[in-house]
């Protein structure tokens, strides 16, 4: 029964196609899009998972001929298995993947591409160029630069700052290098840079030690909103809230709320939106349901969240 109606749809579409309705013809065909992302092990990935599920729900309702297969993985090996399973058992037409790590995922994703599927790579590039049809990512260089420029514009020469770094990765290196470059020639001194691993507890410990070590700190680049929360708690415990302000990063709802409320200690935030997975999913869906060209590179800029524009970045329902 279902099959017949599908064929009728096909016949109808063929007629429409002759009269110029190409998009409708494509809509009638069932397409399966596989989505492979890391599991929600920290705040940012939690937000990303939430946005992925939210977008899949919305796209599934908007385009009934699209079907999504979502898998989350806690490590690279599991992600490779997931992708192989999708190819073998679900016969996917497209793959949207946020590679857990670049190196181990490059070959499996290349195999998907060679099988003639549409491949969208999100946020972490593969180690070989030209595999993916579409690349969607945040801008790590801009993330560091926007923060650095704010420090340069808002601190006097001779000011002293401390930096918390994330988990040692190329992504973290790009951010920190861009930050340092933006500070060039400003006579702002970076006293120390230690790894807080994008973790509240680790950031709390590192900041406590900074506070013991340095009598003068004018500002902190926490580089991540989870770390910013740990940092502010350590500053509050040392009762030095009035001496320094803190800049995080990503756009966590609690932090955005405090910027909206005009918190003196948190003047601004730099975005690195977990909703970038939504952009990737929407664009991949558009590839199948419209004629709009959806190949190439799409880089989402990092913006400065200020008290004036904070409302635009506030998602109260997201867990992040």
């Amino acid at each position, binding site marked *: 029964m279902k099959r017949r109606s599908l064929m009728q749809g096909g016949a109808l579409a063929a007629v429409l196609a002759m009269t110029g309705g190409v998009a409708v013809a494509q809509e009638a065909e069932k397409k399966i899009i596989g989505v492979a992302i890391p599991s929600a092990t920290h705040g940012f*990935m*939690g937000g990303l998972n939430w946005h992925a599920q939210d977008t899949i729900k919305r796209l599934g309702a908007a385009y009934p001929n699209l079907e999504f297969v979502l898998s989350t993985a806690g490590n690279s090996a599991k992600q490779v298995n997931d992708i192989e399973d999708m190819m073998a058992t679900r016969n996917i037409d497209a793959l949207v993947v946020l590679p857990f790590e670049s190196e181990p995922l490059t070959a499996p994703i290349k195999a998907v591409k060679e099988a003639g599927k549409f491949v969208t790579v999100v946020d972490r590039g593969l180690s070989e160029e030209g595999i993916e049809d579409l690349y969607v990512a945040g801008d790590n260089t801009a993330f560091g630069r926007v923060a650095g420029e704010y420090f340069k514009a808002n601190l006097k020469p001779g000011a002293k700052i401390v930096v918390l770094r994330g988990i040692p990765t190329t992504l973290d290196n790009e951010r920190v290098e861009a930050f340092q470059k933006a500070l060039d020639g400003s006579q702002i001194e970076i006293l120390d840079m230690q790894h807080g691993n994008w973790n509240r507890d680790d950031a709390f410990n590192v900041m406590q030690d900074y506070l*013991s070590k340095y009598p003068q700190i004018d500002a902190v680049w926490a580089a991540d909103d989870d770390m910013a929360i740990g940092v502010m708690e350590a500053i509050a415990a040392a009762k030095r809230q009035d001496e320094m302000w803190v800049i995080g990063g990503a756009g966590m709802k609690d932090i955005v709320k405090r910027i909206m409320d005009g918190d003196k200690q948190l003047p601004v935030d730099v975005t690195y939106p977990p909703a970038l997975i939504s952009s990737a999913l929407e664009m991949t869906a558009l590839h199948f349901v419209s004629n709009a060209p959806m190949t190439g590179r799409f880089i989402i800029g990092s913006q400065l969240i200020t008290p004036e524009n904070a409302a635009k970045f506030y998602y109260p329902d997201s867990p992040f």
Partner: protein
Amino acid sequence: MKKIDFHTLGPLIALIALIVLGTLLNSAFLAPANITNVLARSAFIGLIAVGMTFVITAGGLDLSVGSMAAFLAGLAIIAMNALAPSLGVHWGTILIGMGVAILGGLAAGYLNGALITKARIEPFIVTLGTMGIFRSLITWLADGGTLSLDSGLRTLYRPVYYGGIGWLTWPILCFAAVAIAGEWSMRHSRFGRHVEAIGSNDRVARYSAIDVNRVRLMTYVLLGMLVGLAVVLYVPRLGSASGSTGVLWELEAIAAVIIGGTALKGGRGRVWGTVMGVLILSLIDNILNLANLVSPYLNGAIQGVIIVLAVVLQREKHAASER
């Protein structure tokens, strides 16, 4: 008698060496604020490690404690947030939250212990399983994000971590009390002797009319309750719990126990040694942050070297005195 002295000396020498090193590298090291920070930070792992000493001494192991801590923190936060509107923001609500953490710990410890002693499954497998279960549950409860305590309750609860008597904050006092009680029961109580007897030879212990399964079960329940107590002190610090809370705490606790001279194969428990082990681990972190000795990329390597050295030092002294 001399043997025991040598044995406890190993970790103590390592600890003193670290303190001297820290003082030489940075004068801020001995400032009261820094000492308070380091001791209070050690308290979570410290409480767990004291419980772990009993489990390991009895020949067991518990890999689930880090995940369990995250899960209990999530449960306590959810309970307090749910009760805040009806009960209001006062200490009653917080006491219920504390109760949830400690009773939850008791139940989780009982679950581990019962699976090990009644269902007769290897402790490594049972607790590897529950480690995954608790970690998934907290991620699920938090919807992949972070559970945060109601801000009114947060303000009220905060002094439990930050307050205290002068520079001795509550976590430090709590850790000290548990360490003293742990040392006393390991050395002088019937329970402690049974734990050591079971760890050195459980068959002989059984023939000596010791209820081996009950004592083993009790070690896991005790550890669970101490994890609950650690959570009671942890929640007021940042007022939140997420899937990344308490990651690798189990390995830190086990490492502290082994550095302290408790044998991984069981039979010999040293609660004082465990306390030294915990302090050594947190001092290494603190000194590396204070000193800029090496590239931060190498912090893990330095930690590894010091952990191995601390154990080598103590094993050599021990072997020499046994000869």
